[in-house]
């Protein structure tokens, strides 16, 4: 039987001899993740069942990253529920403010997720870890409570769409552009319930940070997961900077079954921008050059990694942010924050007239640190541009890569990085 990488990982986490798309399985999990929005509900439900113990205190990660450092009293109460639960059950991987980061940047960086793992997270962007060759998917708080108790999750084995990217990337084009272009092509439900497997020479050439950006947004096409076969780049990542992840390197079999194969020549793809109010409204940046902006946000679980900040700094170095624009830069983790200071990136951002903040999901989901007023418009390296996502229901969000967001901050309108 020929299997896709996704089917192989799922099979390895069950006691079955074979599986096929459409099968319902009850699978063992390697890690269960919750944050300050979703874990409080999971913890309440865990306690309501009368459960006394978690399945494995080493295999739970609790990350207060959304409304933290606590933006108000209610958010502080939510975060406190996580801290107390972590203390009570001696959860190893609880990350307090000052030691934390945006969950989907933090877990790979901390070496908690690796190739061949099965990870569930009560956050839709949990699909990010597919970049390491893991099966990783977003679930709800009830699923998380069940995972805390049993160490298992019910899943329907998904069909897989294979995406093949050939050719060489143009300058200023990265993983974010490939995924925005792909979502534009298939729509926000184009991969509903399905695994998205990204392949091809252009993927092989992508850095880990770019791969994370791509898999992060599989959910924006309705996908259950995004996945990239692990290779030398993956191997280097999981064994560097103190990480000692073992991992199982699965590959899709020759003759594995795909419900669809979609090919893209990346040499034709320009930096992409997604217009309000859906990530699928993507088009080349040149189409949007008349759109003025009030704010530019660089950060999030999609594009708040060190290479994203380096790209932004390259464009902002020695330049000033347009007088009408607020630039908000949020490194995704404490480690990235520290690295950006060491490399002098923080100075570049501050000298340009930008805000450089402690790690948080911040304004991405309209929490804090840069909420939009009515009629305001932002360009952001985040992942969703739904109506009201970053603040007032009558505000607008355009999605882009960090180079476009930095260039736009300087110009005061959506701009191609080449214009700087």
């Amino acid at each position, binding site marked *: 039987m020929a299997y896709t990488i996704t089917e192989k990982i799922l099979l390895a986490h069950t006691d079955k001899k074979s599986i096929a798309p459409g099968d319902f399985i009850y699978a063992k999990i390697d890690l269960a993740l919750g944050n300050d929005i979703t874990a409080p509900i999971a913890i309440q439900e865990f306690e309501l069942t009368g459960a006394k113990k978690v399945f494995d205190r080493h295999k739970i990660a609790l990350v207060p990253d959304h409304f933290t450092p606590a933006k108000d009293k209610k958010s502080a109460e939510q975060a406190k529920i996580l801290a107390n639960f972590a203390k009570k059950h001696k959860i190893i991987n609880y990350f307090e403010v000052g030691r934390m980061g945006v969950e989907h940047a933090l877990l790979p960086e901390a070496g908690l997720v690796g190739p061949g793992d099965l990870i569930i997270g009560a956050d839709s962007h949990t699909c990010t870890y597919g970049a390491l060759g893991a099966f990783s998917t977003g679930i709800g708080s009830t699923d998380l409570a069940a995972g805390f108790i049993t160490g298992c999750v019910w899943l329907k084995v998904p069909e897989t769409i294979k995406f093949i990217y050939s050719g060489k990337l143009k300058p200023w084009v990265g993983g974010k552009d490939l995924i925005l272009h792909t979502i534009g092509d298939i729509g926000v439900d184009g991969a509903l319930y399905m695994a998205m497997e990204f392949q091809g020479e252009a993927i092989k050439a992508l850095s880990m940070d770019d791969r994370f950006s791509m898999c992060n947004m599989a959910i924006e096409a309705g996908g259950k997961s995004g996945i990239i076969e692990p290779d030398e780049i993956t191997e280097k990542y999981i064994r560097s900077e103190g990480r000692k992840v073992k991992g199982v390197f699965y590959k899709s079999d020759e003759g594995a079954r795909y419900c669809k194969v979609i090919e893209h020549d990346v040499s034709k793809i320009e930096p992409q921008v997604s217009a309000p109010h859906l990530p699928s409204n993507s088009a080349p940046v040149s189409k949007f050059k008349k759109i003025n902006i009030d704010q530019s946000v660089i950060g999030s679980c999609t594009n708040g990694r060190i290479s994203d900040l380096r790209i932004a700094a390259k464009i902002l170095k020695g330049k000033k942010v347009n007088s009408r624009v607020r630039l908000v830069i949020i490194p995704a983790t404490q480690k990235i924050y520290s690295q950006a200071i060491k490399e002098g990136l923080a100075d570049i951002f501050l000298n340009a007239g930008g805000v450089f903040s402690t790690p948080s999901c911040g304004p991405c989901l309209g*929490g804090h640190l840069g909420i939009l007023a009515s009629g305001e418009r932002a360009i952001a390296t985040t992942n969703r541009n*739904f109506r009201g996502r970053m603040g007032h229901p009558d505000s607008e969000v355009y999605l882009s890569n960090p180079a476009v967001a930095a260039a736009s901050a300087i110009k005061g309108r959506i701009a191609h990085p080449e214009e700087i």
Partner: protein
Amino acid sequence: MKFKGKVWKFKDDVNTDEIIPARHLNTTDPKELGSHCMEDIDKDFSKKISKGDIIVAGKNFGCGSSREHAQISIKGAGISCVIAESFARIFLRNAINMGLPILEIEDIRGIKEGDYLEVDLNSGSVMNLTEHKAHKAKSLPKFIQEIIKSGGLLKWIKRRELDAKRTK
């Protein structure tokens, strides 16, 4: 289980930020979350509806975040069930796991806002009492039906554990 209620109609791709905006996620209180249900689409939605009313939407209902505040908010507002042409996957899981009744029907064009529906969850029949027209919901996989019949995921797990003990 049978429901009768007035229809509130929504478009395709209704997302979780529209169902319950993130600014309200610092609470899990059903009443408070219910009072903000769909407010960025229609700020008076929660005031206009009556207990037992039904949401009818196009495809990909509930796309976006994994927040169960969305289901809590819909239930808290008093909605009895959600009918859509399709559901986003995490929303679907959460609804099943939490016991929010949902039904998929192929085409919602025959149902208008303000129509009265009678929904039979067991048979999957959706009767439009205003138009005297019957719709048939897609039947759910057996596995899912089991979870729903148990009263949600956590009760299903409990039953499963008990069954395992019994067979030992």
